[in-house]
């Protein structure tokens, strides 16, 4: 036998032993195999406020409030609410709701579920959502009263995301490890957890006693596949039915897969460049404007979204703009791509001939791609970016420590249509501290006051105040909005889905095709 033949024979032998289980029969139509790139790490939003985890949380736990397709708060576990005064809410609980272990849901459970996020011992990742909350108490058997420090219209929206209701007894016993694979969680949602492991994934079973409409899927398996290409191959081979962890920019690689459809819908996100206004040449507003002119946002947007997104005009996610202004956003100072104007702007700065700036950035992923494109654009007007790569985690840590900020590419996704979820993070002085999200360092007592006023503003008043802030940002250019990208889902054609920007409970929106 030649070596080739020997090798072939060996391979065949191996296959013979292995193939029997290779092409398993397709799972029942009402079982969904879902994949995420990172495993859900906690079934408690306090410790697992990330997309993979919240995906599962939303299927298992109910929140007090929900969001409709336009992003407006609607009743969920709360049958309704009243506002005794602008700074307090009185929620009335839905009756006869039970946790999946059969115990009834009480107002005390609901109140504690919110209150625990304020407890430093819990160190909740959602704590910053509820800083306006002063007091939460159960009133009688079916009512919860929330008292805010001051009026804050965004409270309802953030509650839709983060006020998940769990039994007080369980949450109190496990302040730190509720939702971990060891402890698990208990909810009132459409699904219950039948298995949760970081390695073999999550298995959800339909909650037959669910108070709402009967869930369409009987069983959901969530697996994690860290490598995006392996994930794609898994979907392609039919081993996985769907995933939402695909990049819009990779649409080309996904759209042709047989038996798989790709769904795109506007995402509540914004990608932008942050310019550290305290850092050398960037302190000069003309430099910042020059950079804004020099960056070809259209090209970057096309590169990063492959047509499933658009250049960003203002520093708010597109859905937020739509929710606020409808189809008529206010005019804002604009910096269309124009190297000539960029050079002119630079000429008016203290660095007319350009300069060199060391820019740390994350080695891989979108950041790497965008920063390479930006560097190429800026080189044309004489600004040299010396890209200093670092591992993604390390870069992230450094950035959060506000260590050596300069030009940063940032991409943020949000859950609510409230601009107040975005703007304070961007330009408040408090956020300019380490671990804050104000990477530009822009902000003053004056802006803080404006932000402060915005918290309690409503209606046209709020709209005007947001416009004013956006205008200031556009003029001072601490940030350069780059693009919005669509959310993308790849789903086997055996299923259908109705998804929208404000969808939180994705699994509830997926049903077997033809039913």
């Amino acid at each position, binding site marked *: 036998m*030649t*070596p*080739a033949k*020997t090798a072939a024979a*060996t391979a065949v032998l*191996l*296959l013979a*032993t*292995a*193939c*029997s*289980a*290779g092409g398993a029969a397709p799972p029942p139509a009402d079982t969904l195999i879902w994949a995420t790139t990172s495993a859900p*790490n*906690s079934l408690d939003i306090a*410790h*697992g*406020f*990330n997309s993979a985890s919240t995906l599962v949380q939303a299927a298992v736990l109910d929140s007090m409030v929900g969001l409709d397709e336009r992003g407006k708060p609607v009743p969920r576990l709360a049958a309704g609410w009243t506002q005794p005064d602008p700074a307090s809410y009185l929620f009335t609980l839905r009756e006869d709701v039970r946790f999946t272990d059969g115990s009834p849901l009480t107002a005390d459970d609901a109140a504690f579920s919110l209150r625990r996020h304020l407890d*430093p*011992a819990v*160190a909740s*990742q*959602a*704590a*910053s959502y509820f*800083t306006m909350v002063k007091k939460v108490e159960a009133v009688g058997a079916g009512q919860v009263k929330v008292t805010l420090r001051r009026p804050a219209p965004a409270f309802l929206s953030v509650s839709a995301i983060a006020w998940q209701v769990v039994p007080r007894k369980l949450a109190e016993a496990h302040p730190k*490890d509720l*939702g*971990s*694979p*060891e402890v698990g969680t208990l909810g009132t949602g459409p699904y219950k957890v039948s298995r949760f*492991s*970081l*390695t*073999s994934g999550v298995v959800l079973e339909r909650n037959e006693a669910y108070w709402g409409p009967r869930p369409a899927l009987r069983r959901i398996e969530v*697996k*994690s*596949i*860290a*490598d995006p290409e*392996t994930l794609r*191959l*898994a979907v*392609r*081979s039919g*081993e996985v039915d769907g995933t939402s962890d695909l990049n819009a920019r990779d649409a080309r690689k996904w759209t042709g897969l047989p038996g798989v459809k790709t769904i795109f819908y506007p995402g509540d996100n914004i990608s932008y460049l942050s310019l550290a206004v305290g850092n050398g040449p960037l302190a000069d507003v003309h430099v910042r404007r020059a950079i804004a002119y020099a960056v070809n946002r259209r090209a970057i947007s096309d590169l990063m979204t492959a047509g499933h997104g658009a250049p960003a005009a203002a520093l708010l996610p597109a859905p937020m703009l739509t929710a606020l202004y409808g189809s008529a956003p206010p005019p804002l100072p604009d910096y269309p791509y124009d190297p000539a104007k960029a050079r002119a702007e630079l000429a008016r700065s203290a660095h007319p001939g350009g300069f060199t700036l060391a820019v740390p950035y994350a080695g891989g992923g979108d950041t790497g791609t965008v920063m390479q494109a930006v560097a190429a654009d800026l080189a044309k007007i004489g600004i040299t970016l010396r890209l200093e790569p670092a591992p993604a*985690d*390390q870069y*992230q*840590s*450094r950035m*959060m*420590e506000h*260590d050596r900020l300069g030009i940063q590419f940032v991409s943020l996704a949000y859950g609510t249509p409230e601009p107040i979820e975005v703007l304070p*993070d961007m330009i408040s002085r408090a*956020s300019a501290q380490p*671990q*804050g*999200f104000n990477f530009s360092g822009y902000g003053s007592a004056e802006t803080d006051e404006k932000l402060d006023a915005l918290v309690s503003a409503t209606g046209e008043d709020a709209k005007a105040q947001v416009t004013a802030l956006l205008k200031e940002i556009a003029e001072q250019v601490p940030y350069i909005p780059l693009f919005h990208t669509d959310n993308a889902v790849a789903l086997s054609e055996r299923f259908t889905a109705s998804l929208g920007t404000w969808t939180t409970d994705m699994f509830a929106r997926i049903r077997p095709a033809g039913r």
Partner: protein
Amino acid sequence: MAVLTLLGRRLGAAVLLLGVLSALTYGLLLAAPGGPEQVLLGGRPSTPETRAAIREQYHLDDPFPVRYARWLGDALHGDLGTSVYSREPVVTVIADRLPVTAGLAAYALVLTVVVGVPAGLLAAMRRGGRLDQGITLGSLAALSIPSFALSILLLYGFAVRLGWFPVFGEGRTLTERITHLTLPAVALAAAQAALVVRQMRAAALDLAASDFLTFARARGLPRRRVWTSYALRNAALPVLTVGGLLLAANLTGSVFVERAFGLHGLGALLIGAVGQKDIPVVQALVLLGGVIVVAVNLLIDLAYLVVDPRVRKGAAA
């Protein structure tokens, strides 16, 4: 007695090794920028109170020696801590993943031995022939191709194009597990099998030229006896060593393959934990790695003790 002395010496070396390893890793992790806060805060906006609470809880403001001493104290009491990322006990985290990596490592080792040993012997027997050239060249290629590149190739060819094997995951039942681990094991075993082929071929050639083999043949011993008690038994010694070292390397080094095949093994865990500054997990993994190397070396020593009378009686003397 010999065994006890050996065990004692090995134990001493192991303690030293583990001490050095753990201190080095701990130091490295602390020296690097960032901490577990990123993971604990979920990369989200946070309140100062939360941040302070976290620093307090995780003793992030203590100096290195204090933190290391605390870790070491706990570790010596058998408490390896809790994963920052999943909030599970580290032991559980590792126990969850060990079967995957161990299965993969064992599978790869079996493939390595089953393919490598006969191929090496065959090449030596047909020295200079076409079969030898083929095997030698094949092993050279297998040795040179990075395991991740091979993984991608196998994945694309056998799992996606031909659909013979699953693309990812580790399977649950035994048959599933074998099916799932076949391609990764092949990817992992290729380079090692190549090593074994080379080793085996060289050992067999040495043997063929050795006086004692000629003398055995000169006495007209049956072919089977010459093969088993002369060729194989003597060639087994170097292969044993290599095999053991490969097993140790597999248990800690299947990172690439795990990543490419979406396996949740120790390698994948390490990559994640290092990124997340999940110090307890990294520490435990590094310790485990050290223990495995020590244990495997010990096993090799013991095996030598059984197989080789020189070592057995030498140790006794």
